[in-house]
């Protein structure tokens, strides 16, 4: 039942923050989708707007926290260089503490780094940019967003792209952690 510090941070980065992101996305997209005057009364708009602002702001915050913890806490453990006396060409026990090198040591696993990690570590940072723009738009218009179908559509597109970017990163993060856990 014990988690090492590294495993705990990997869980916070991938599972806790990732779950919050998914929840915020699901709720936010549903709220934006139904934000049409023929579907919601004026009272309904006023009632749901604070929740929408909170949800999109939370999603942006979580996106930032996810990439910051991933880049500055978990990633250095992933890319750490093994000592000179550890054979980098064999997936032996001594190399297990160095996930990047462990993956690269075999043709069967090297693409998890060369493709998966290379894409994940970069595309993930697009998510908070898009999520922040979405949160700003929702907070800026507030209840009047319902009158701006053009903005609402743009917000939903950006919102979805933020989710796609985070989803790619999350998916490869899960696969890579399965193949070579940071432990």
């Amino acid at each position, binding site marked *: 039942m014990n988690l090492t510090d590294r495993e705990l941070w990997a869980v916070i980065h991938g599972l806790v923050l990732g779950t919050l992101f998914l929840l915020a996305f699901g709720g936010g997209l549903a709220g934006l989708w139904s934000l049409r005057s023929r579907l919601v009364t004026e009272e309904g708009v006023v009632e749901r707007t604070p929740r929408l602002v909170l949800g999109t702001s939370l999603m942006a915050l979580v996106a930032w926290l996810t990439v910051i913890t991933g880049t500055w806490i978990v990633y*250095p453990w992933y890319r750490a260089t093994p000592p000179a006396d550890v054979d980098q060409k064999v997936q032996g026990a001594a190399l297990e503490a160095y996930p990047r090198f462990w993956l690269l040591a075999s043709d069967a696993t090297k693409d998890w780094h060369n493709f998966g990690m290379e*894409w994940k570590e*970069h595309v993930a940072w*697009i998510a908070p940019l898009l999520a922040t723009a979405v949160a700003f738009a929702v907070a800026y218009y507030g209840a009047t967003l319902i*009158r701006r179908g*053009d903005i609402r*559509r743009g917000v939903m597109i950006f919102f979805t792209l933020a989710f796609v*970017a985070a989803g790619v990163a999350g998916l490869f993060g899960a696969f890579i952690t399965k193949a070579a856990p940071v432990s």
Partner: protein
Amino acid sequence: MQNEVSQTKPSGPVAASFIAAGIGSVVMGVLVIANDVSADVSNFLKFDANFGLGKGVGPLSGKVVLTVLAFLISWVILHLVLRGKEVNFTRALTIALVLVGIGFALTFPPIFEFIVGLFR
């Protein structure tokens, strides 16, 4: 529609934030390629070692710091330019989506490796 638009705040600030996010995305993509093309750029991007921003992050530290700076600075500039203005939001969104698309593409390994190969 026009009446509804006139009853809301101008769209300029939102357009500014969307385009700024697109600019940040492109900067990330360009830095991914620049890092692989030039050893000098790659060394410069090690902000963890060069500027004490973390430890063991490598060139990714510079890529993300510059990406975020590009996003924030372009947002501030565009906001100052577009505040109080009603813009053609569909056009602004299209620009933003093209920029984000370029950013996505340049971070996709088969594409950035192909482009990096052109420089070698």
